[in-house]
Every structure is written in C-alpha cells, then in structure tokens.
C-alpha cells in the first residue's frame, strides 16, 4: 500500500488480486445480494484509493482492509433501517436469530433456496445466514480474511475470548447443518 501511495500502480494491482475474492465473499455472505455486494465492494476499494496518501501502516493491510469492509457493511445495514437489529456486536442469540431472518437471502423468505438445501453449498450459506451477525462476521473474517483471533477481536472491538465464543457457536451451528444435509 505504501508503494501504491508513492505512485506505483502495479502495487495496487497486486493488493487487489490478493484480497478481492475474500472481501467480495465477505460482503456477499453478509448481505446475500450480489448487486449490493458489488456496490459495497466498489465503495470499499474506492475508499482505499482515496485515502492512499494518508495511509499509515499501524497493522497488516488485510486488517485495515477488512476493517473498512466491516464498517461499510454496518453502515449499509444502518442505512437500510436495520441498525438496531443488526448490531454485530450483539451476542444475544434470539436477537441474532431475528436479525438473521430479516436478512435478504435468508431461508425464511427464499423457498427456492430451501428447496436447494440438498446441495451442500446452499445449506452452508443458509446456515451462515441464519447465524447472528456477530457470529457470522467472526466466521467470515476467519475464513475469508485469514486474520488471527487477536486481529478479529481488534477489528470487532471485543476481546479475544468473545471472538472464540462466537466462532465456537458458529462452527457448531454450521457443522450441524452440514451433517443434516
């Protein structure tokens, strides 16, 4: 990123090639809509381009990039009027379940998705969408970004033990869904 800030366009190409898939899937799994994911994805990378001159490497670039993505998805939910429901720091299981059901693409409002649950991928995605946002966010960060527990904790603004708890719960739910399918 520092090379790109100095004017090396090829450095941006390398960064983009390395992180575009993870960031895109992180957004897509969160919002469940490809069009929205495209819009958020473009916003995040344009933000990277815009703030290149003031970028200060206080952490890994991936941590900084997924922090941008995390904030952007929260802003998106707030803009959609779901901010109260979609606090990803909320670990209340009932509230999280309600929020998951409110997400577009969740199994409750997509019968065809439920019909395709025989397929593994659809089952996983449905199970992920059913997770509370905080647990889903922790799981997605772990799977897509490659960040460590400490980095995820820093990104989410919680302790490491909280992240572990969220991950343990998310993995158990997804494993159960995987075994059922």
């Amino acid at each position, binding site marked *: 990123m520092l090379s*790109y800030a100095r004017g090396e*366009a090829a450095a941006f190409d390398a960064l*983009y090639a390395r992180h575009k*898939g993870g960031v895109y899937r992180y957004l897509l799994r969160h919002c469940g809509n490809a069009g929205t994911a*495209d819009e958020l994805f*473009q916003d995040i990378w344009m933000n990277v381009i815009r703030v290149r001159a003031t970028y200060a490497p206080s952490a890994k670039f991936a941590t900084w990039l997924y922090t941008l993505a995390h904030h952007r998805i929260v802003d998106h939910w707030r803009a959609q009027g779901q901010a109260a429901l979609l606090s990803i720091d909320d670990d209340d299981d009932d509230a999280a379940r309600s929020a998951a059901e409110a997400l577009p693409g969740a199994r409750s409002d997509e019968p065809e998705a439920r019909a395709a649950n025989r397929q593994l991928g659809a089952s996983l995605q449905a199970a992920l969408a059913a997770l509370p946002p905080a647990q889903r966010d922790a799981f997605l960060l772990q799977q897509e970004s490659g960040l460590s527990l400490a980095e995820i904790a820093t990104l989410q603004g919680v302790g490491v033990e909280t992240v572990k708890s969220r991950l343990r719960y998310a993995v158990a739910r997804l*494993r159960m869904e995987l075994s059922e399918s």
Partner: protein
Amino acid sequence: MTDERDLRDPALDAAWRAQSTETPPPALDAAILAAAHRAVKSAPEKIGPGREATRPWRWWTPLAAAAVIGVIAIGALQLAPHEPDPTKVVVSDMPPTIASKPETTVAPPPPAAAPQSTAPPPAPRQERRVAEAKPPRSSDAAKRESSAPPAQPAPEPFPARRDAAAAAAPAAESSAAGRAEADNAMAAAPPPRAAPASPPASSAGAVAPMLAKRAMRDDAQQRRSPEDFVERIRKLFTEGNLPEAQRELAAFRTAYADADARLPADLRPWAATVPRN
C-alpha cells in the same frame, strides 16, 4: 484456553472452500483498477533534482556556448586555405625543375638534421645555396611578378606556419646530400606525416645508420668553403702529410669543379702531380 485450531472443523473448512468461489465481476475489476491507475497518474508530480537539472539557462549554459564558439573558431582557422609564406627562405639543392614547385619547398625534417641544427652552417654557404636555388624559380616567378599588382605587404603567417617554416629551414639544408641518401637517412627515424611513402625503418636495417653518417659527412664536406679546403690542404702539405693532403685535395675537387684554379700558386705545382679520380 482454547487454541485457534480447536475452533476449526476440517470438514467444514473444506466444504466452505469448495463453495467459496465467488469473485467480483470482471467489469467491476476493470473499473476499480482503472480508477486506481487514474488516481496515481493524475497526481501532481514532484519536481526533483533531476528535473531541476534539465531547466534551461543554468549556470553552465554560457560556459557551454563559449566552448562551442571557441571550437568553431579554431576549426575555421584550421580549415582556412593556407597562403604561401613569402618571407620563408626556400633552401634546396634539388634540380631547378623540382625546386621551382612550391609544394616541394618544405621538406620533411630527416633525422640527420638534428645534429646539424645544433651547429648551424656558416652564413655565406647558406646564402650561396639560396642563390643557387632561386634562379630557376625566378624564371617563372619573374613573369608572374611582372604581371602581378604592385607589391603589397605580405600577410602575416599563422603562428603554426611560422613555426613550421622555422623548422623547415634546417631540414632543407640537410637535403643537400641528395634525395636518395636523405631517404635512406630518414629510414632510421619515424616517418613524418607528409611523407607516407617513406620506407619503413625495419627495411633499412643496420645499413641505415651507416648511410646516415655518410650522408652527414658528405654534406659537411660539401658545405665547406674553398678557403677551408685550401687552409686544410696547406696545413697538411706543410706538415708533410702528403697522403692526407691528397685526400683533402680530392675532396676539394669533388666539391668544387674549379678547385685547382682556387688553389694558391704555391700549391698548384704539387696539385698538378696529384691525379684526378
């Protein structure tokens, strides 16, 4: 304390990886990359030292201009047509037809000229040679001078040509030993630039130094005045060294055809007894 590996299920990870193949659309990729490149290229470029150095009219510009003008002036002077130096004394023992050519007036300095330049020949002899060399020139030159406009002050020669003329004077004197012997003598020294056809030094071998010495001796003998010969002969004759006196007389006869007539009366009877070669 739960390790990070305990929070992972290999089967779940594998299934997730198998399903996580979505990527952004190519059009979105292209748009983002284009925006990134545009942002970098449109940024104002910093002016560094290298760019500063390419500014015109730096301190070295007048210096460079003066150097270029100087080089051009020197080149023009070197390429200017060289006018013959009327003040230069042409000394040559070459036949009249050759000596009358202006191109042959400056002979390349052979190595034999070096020792002679340290001991300049007597002035009367040089004047005589000039007198000998000038008549053939005057036949053509007189016609040109008669039709030429009134005498004008001769142009001042270039310093380089003046030096060349000064260097050519002793060189021309040394050519009196004859063209062939002079060429042989030149073989012992590096050939001058104006004589590319001179034989290489290696072809002369060990004979070259001997020929050079002989040429020097003959040249010195020819440059002796009659008075010198007469004085030398008289001295040898008085000392009773008749063989040496005879050799000296032979040399006198070789140098001067009227040697016997130039002898004093007291030596003529003895000279009449010395056979000619």
